[in-house]
């Protein structure tokens, strides 16, 4: 009976939509770039709102990034350049930064965008009542002023080199719409007015957000008329929607990219794959307060004992690369001289022996003072990290180290083990930051519970470099500081860099203008140039 019901329903609606002839279009023809069309993508989560400083989720930043501008942005080579600002100057004492806005900037509602809006945004992000976790960088500003409508000037108590990066991350908000509102609860968060390429047209809770081209956009006109982001929590369902040509783009996991796509030629006819440098790396971090991880020979031995290429091949299916510093390979901050520790079990054994570890009792596990070398690798529920742990466990066994793996839910992982520093070794990830400042991760003063140097790394030379790096705004001088910092970090081996996975995406071939291969900033650097030739636009979207 169910079958009858279901079949009846299917048949009744089969005719109306089955005339989509998606498999017969040839997507290889060349067309001049025209404007129009709708790009439909899928995201796994829904934003709670679109004021990024409040919302914080990646879904919110992804959408808000199309609606709001910052003063500065990163270009395709990940160098800072102006967005709302035409130019900026740094005073001789490096404490004052003056931003000159581009002329005639407008909000989407046609109101003028001036330095007053920038000042207002700074006031909001530093306001005690604003529920944002990102205020501390901006609280370092002692004076913020607007000499005229196109100039915004900030003065810091001491030179603060990461400042420019922070201004590239702060979306400027319209004062005229928000000045009488409580920014934490304002309806503006769900009905924003920005200045970037797109404006929000429609938000269907739990279903999709639709953006439309902003005719007053400050950065010129994007080619695609509408961006539609559907909320589909399940990656497998996203993949089916992509196969049925209901969405144009989605992020892939390595299995979908390296196994499913090559096996399905009919998908490759319509869909192109892209890979770009990822934004984070996975590492194995030691609790340096615990023996024997305070011994550099033990840390280096473990570094030599782990086969990084095996992890990249096995866990990421080859879709990643090894790193030797916490910066994106190929960018200014990444020290090109540094190479990851090679896989060298003999060297690992020699170092362990020098540290006093040998298999005295012949049980296959090395020991010192009668105690076998055995510890626990802790990680959170993340398939890739769990698999990484297993590969590490096997390699450590070969040099006589007995490692057990323990997988925990995130909140208990953080609350019961990381904060009180109750762990031996963790497998976790950090982002490959665009600004080189990593004071909060590596400086010895950042070890209190809840702070980010939870592995308790402490090296006076590194402390000095991190402090100097924060005071130096000249990019070339700054680069030297961080190259030295990365070299010491690699030598000290407080963490073992394991892998940096690629960002993988599938985009329908109707979308043109995508850089392939991707520059360091990834394929998203020029979304305003992406276009959909008229001949390839979806027919069912014409009613919009």
């Amino acid at each position: 009976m169910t079958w009858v019901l279901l079949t009846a329903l299917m048949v009744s609606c089969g005719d109306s939509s089955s005339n989509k002839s998606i498999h017969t279009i040839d997507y290889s023809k060349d067309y001049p770039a025209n404007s129009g069309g709708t790009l439909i993508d899928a995201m796994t989560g829904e934003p709670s709102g679109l004021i990024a400083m409040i919302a914080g989720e990646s879904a919110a930043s992804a959408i808000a990034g199309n609606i709001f501008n910052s003063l500065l942005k990163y270009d395709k080579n990940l160098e800072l350049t102006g967005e709302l600002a035409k130019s900026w100057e740094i005073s001789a004492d490096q404490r004052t930064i003056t931003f000159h806005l581009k002329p005639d900037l407008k909000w989407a509602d046609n109101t003028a965008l001036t330095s007053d809006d920038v000042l207002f945004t700074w006031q909001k992000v530093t306001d005690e009542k604003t529920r944002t976790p990102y205020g501390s960088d901006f609280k370092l500003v002692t004076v913020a002023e607007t000499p005229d409508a196109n100039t915004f000037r900030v003065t810091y108590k001491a030179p603060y080199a990461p400042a420019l990066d922070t201004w590239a991350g702060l979306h400027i908000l319209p004062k005229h719409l928000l000045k009488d509102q409580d920014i934490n609860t304002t309806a503006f968060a769900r009905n924003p007015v920005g200045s970037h390429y797109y404006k929000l047209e429609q938000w269907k809770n739990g279903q999709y957000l639709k953006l439309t081209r902003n005719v007053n956009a400050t950065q010129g006109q994007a080619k695609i008329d509408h961006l539609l982001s559907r909320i589909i929590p399940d990656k497998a369902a996203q993949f089916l929607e992509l196969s049925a040509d209901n969405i144009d783009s989605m992020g892939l996991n390595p299995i979908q990219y390296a196994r499913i796509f090559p096996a399905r030629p009919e998908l490759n006819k319509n869909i192109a794959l892209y890979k770009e440098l990822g934004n984070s790396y996975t590492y194995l971090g030691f609790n340096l307060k615990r023996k024997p991880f305070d011994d550099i020979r033990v840390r280096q031995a473990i570094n030599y004992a782990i086969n990084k290429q095996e992890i990249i091949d096995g866990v990421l299916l080859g879709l990643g690369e090894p790193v030797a510093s916490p910066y994106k390979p190929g960018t200014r901050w990444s020290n090109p001289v540094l190479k990851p520790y090679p896989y060298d079990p003999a060297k690992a054994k020699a170092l362990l022996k020098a540290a006093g570890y040998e298999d005295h009792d012949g049980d296959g596990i090395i020991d010192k003072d009668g105690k076998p070398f055995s510890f626990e690798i802790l990680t959170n529920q993340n398939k890739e990290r769990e698999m990484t742990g297993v590969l590490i466990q096997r390699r450590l066994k070969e040099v006589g180290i007995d490692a057990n793996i323990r997988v925990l839910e995130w909140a208990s992982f953080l609350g019961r083990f990381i904060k009180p520093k109750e762990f031996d070794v963790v497998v976790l990830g950090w982002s490959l930051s665009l600004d080189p400042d990593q004071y909060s991760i590596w400086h010895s003063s950042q070890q209190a519970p809840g702070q980010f140097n939870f592995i308790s790394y402490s090296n006076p030379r590194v402390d000095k470099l991190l402090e100097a790096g924060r005071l130096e705004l000249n990019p070339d001088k700054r680069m030297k500081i961080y190259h030295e910092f990365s070299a010491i970090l690699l030598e000290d081996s407080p963490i073992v860099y394991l892998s940096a996975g690629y960002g993988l995406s599938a985009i329908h071939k109707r979308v043109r203008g995508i850089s392939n291969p991707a520059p360091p900033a990834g394929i998203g650097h020029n979304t305003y140039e992406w276009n959909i030739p008229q001949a390839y636009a979806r027919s069912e979207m014409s009613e919009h």
Partner: protein
Amino acid sequence: MLKYLLKRFFWMIPLLVGISLISFMIMHLAPGDITSSEASFNPKASEESRQKLRELYSLDKPVIVQYSLWMKRMATLNFGTSFASHQRPVFWQTKDKDGNVTLGMIQEALPITLLINVLSLILIIAIALPLGVISALKQNQLADRVITLFVFIGFAIPGFWLALMLMYWTGVQHNWLPISGLQSLGHEHLHWLGKTLDTLKHLALPVFISAITGLAGIALFVRNGMLEVLHQDYITTARSKGLNEHRVIYGHALRNALLPLITIFGLSIPGLIGGSVIAESIFAIPGMGKLFYDAVLMRDFPVIMGILTIGALLTLIGNLVADVAYAWADPRVRRGVMQ
């Protein structure tokens, strides 16, 4: 009867308070809070800022103080706002000074889940009743074996797998049904009939999946109930009176066999508001299951408590309704209540 009802209602209040207290405590036993989500483990977000957030949400106060704050709000039927940064109202819509209406989270999710569950319950009854009766009548014959096998396969099959297979078959291969979501893009432009049809098409698979996994319980319940009743003396009496078999089965046996089902349906009332996380995630349906699951992962306490409280209330009401319906349907029970 009225006195009995009033007594039952009165007892629900301390029960609800007790349930909410226990839920609140258990919720706080789990480590972490809204400021310790994976996304907030970000060097750009300082520990001081997170401490400030904790204070703003009163998370730095002892659990019992937090509970009394929550109780105080609940006394005025205020479910509060979500901790998730933009603080949508948990239960019902609010209006700000400029007249902007923000819809409540439960207000939006509940009707969707309710619709799916009611449809699937109707489908389950429509299929399970005849299957159960046939099974009982043809006990241990081929029909019985086939039906039992069929409902057990439905029960045992992993719902998410069947869902994905059907999505692929009906959505990708044949383009008969939409793959995921609640409405097509451009739903607003449709005529009301088109809108209804569009929604039904989107709901077909989720309802089917939810029904097929729930079929076994009810079908076997009906089968066993029927078997028990068919061996009662009054059935023999009815047959010996010379009633035709049709009246014996549908007039006497089935009506009695259905009595225990009332309890089952009463108890399934709270289940009606609980969605399946897996099904809702796969089908991209913004229902109660996903709402609750996300709230738990985020440690969004007001949302968790809101859903638990409504769930507890509905469970108690469901019990009451089942008892009353039982009394109404069965004179033996009625007499017991009256005494």
